């Protein structure tokens, strides 16, 4: 499968990655090779096979509705690159 500049650009927007020109060419090649390789799966007839997310049938795992957490604000914020007034600070964001 040929990966175009547009595709790489689009994936870059989705993944929030910005590639240099050199990296972009490499990424096109790598992704193309990888997609060709994984297309091997098309040899398999999977029409009547269910998609399997979990390897065994785990189900119904719940918490009870009880407050267990206290206030960890200072600790959690300690890793923030920038903070202000108890909040994580980010570049101006329009809604």
């Amino acid at each position, binding site marked *: 499968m040929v990966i175009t500049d547009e595709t790489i650009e*689009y994936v870059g*927007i*989705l993944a*929030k990655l910005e590639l240099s020109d050199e990296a972009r060419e490499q990424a096109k090649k790598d992704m193309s090779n990888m997609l060709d390789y994984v297309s091997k799966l098309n040899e398999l007839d999977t029409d009547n096979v269910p998609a399997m*997310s*979990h390897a065994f*049938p*785990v*189900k*119904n*795992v*719940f*918490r*009870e*509705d*009880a*407050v*267990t*957490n206290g*206030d*960890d*604000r200072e600790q*959690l*914020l300690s890793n923030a690159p920038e903070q*202000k*007034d*108890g*909040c*994580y*600070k*980010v*570049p*101006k*964001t*329009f*809604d």
Partner: protein
Amino acid sequence: MSKTYETVIGLEVHVELATKTKIFCGCSTEFGGAPNTHTCPVCTGMPGSLPVLNKAVVEKAIAVGLATNCNITRNCKFDRKNYFYPDNPQNYQISQLYYPICRDGKVEIEVEGKKKFVRIHEIHMEEDAGKLVHDPFTDSSLVDFNRSGVPLIEIVSEPDMRSAEEVIAYLEKLRLIIQYLGASDCKLNEGSMRADVNLSVRELGSEKFGTRTETKNLNSFKAIARAIENERERQIDLIESGEKVIQETRRWDDTKEYSYPMRSKEDAQDYRYFPDPDLVPIIISDEWMESIRAAQPELRDEKRIRYREEYDIPEYDIDIITGSKKMADIFEETISLGASPKKVSNWLMVETMRLMKEHELDADELKFSAKNLAALIDLVEAKTINGTVAKEVFEKIFTDDIDPEKYVEENGLKTVNDSGALTKTIEEIVAANPKSVEDYKSGKEKAIGFLVGQTMKAMQGKADPGEVNRILKEILSK
């Protein structure tokens, strides 16, 4: 001649579920609180943290689904919706796309006497995002994750509505069902109920839908009505001038009364949904579903039927009282304390409604207790206080939920039942107003009203007007 257009509207309604904790962690959902004080590694997207589903969320979602005639998905799953935004700590929202918990429901609405069904496409569970506040001092945005992970259900309707009135009727219907279930308080102004409007227009009679837009940020029924009218006109103008409606998400600004497109070029709107591997499927058994159904409280429509059968009160009163879960609760509880339904209804319909208007309150915001209303009704019945005093006492009950017996006692508001003192006052009034006495005796029945009024005034209102009337007539007939 200009063409006639039809508006086609579908709604996406987000409702915050009334659970104690967030959907995937044990943080409190309590409103308010200093920024980020209700957060933990899970709801701030810390590396290595994992979600664990709050059972109460599933049960409330099923309850809403059953009450809106949905099919419950017996094997449902959570998916990740991937998009970057700072209020979304993982940069994916845990939601449901492939197997939402409820599908194919419907609710009946009534507009101007005409009934119709609005179909519900699906209801899914998801987590709320945090809050972004603009900081003018640094011209940056500040993120507060207190709301991040608060449980939501999103109720997606089919495009079955044709007017703002139908939209409001549908929202009212949903709000009442959900409030009656106790699944949410559904306050539009506080954001615990939010509606996004999907709207398109088409020529009347056309089978094909036009291109739709989605309008967000609608914080009141009034805003919804305004936004619908505005968007309808905007789309018609575009079509009439030969332009195309673009499928997009728009944000409504209610103060400026216009909407604008929300997305930038950095948003591809390709959410790459896939099943969340950190969560396991929810298998809903017959037993589980039936136990939720069995625990379902009486909903509004059932209540209306019962009121009609059990209480001798006007249909209009039934509508108003059942129009709020809170008011219906007060009504029933006051009756259960021995008050007559008619009297309770009267207090709610007249004085309560008047004071709500005066204080600009919704019925959901009523704070007084049935116990105090029942006691007040008792005091009136026993003629301990008269109607005028009762209204005055009720104002205090309405605002501060005071104990009426105590209040009447402390403020000396009891009706004077000592007929000796009353007779004496009346004799004085009769003596002081010979003109009125003459008028009355000459056949002007109305004149007695003046004398009653004067007596009440002299008694500082603490007399039973019936009794005053009786004694007056007795004296005057002498």
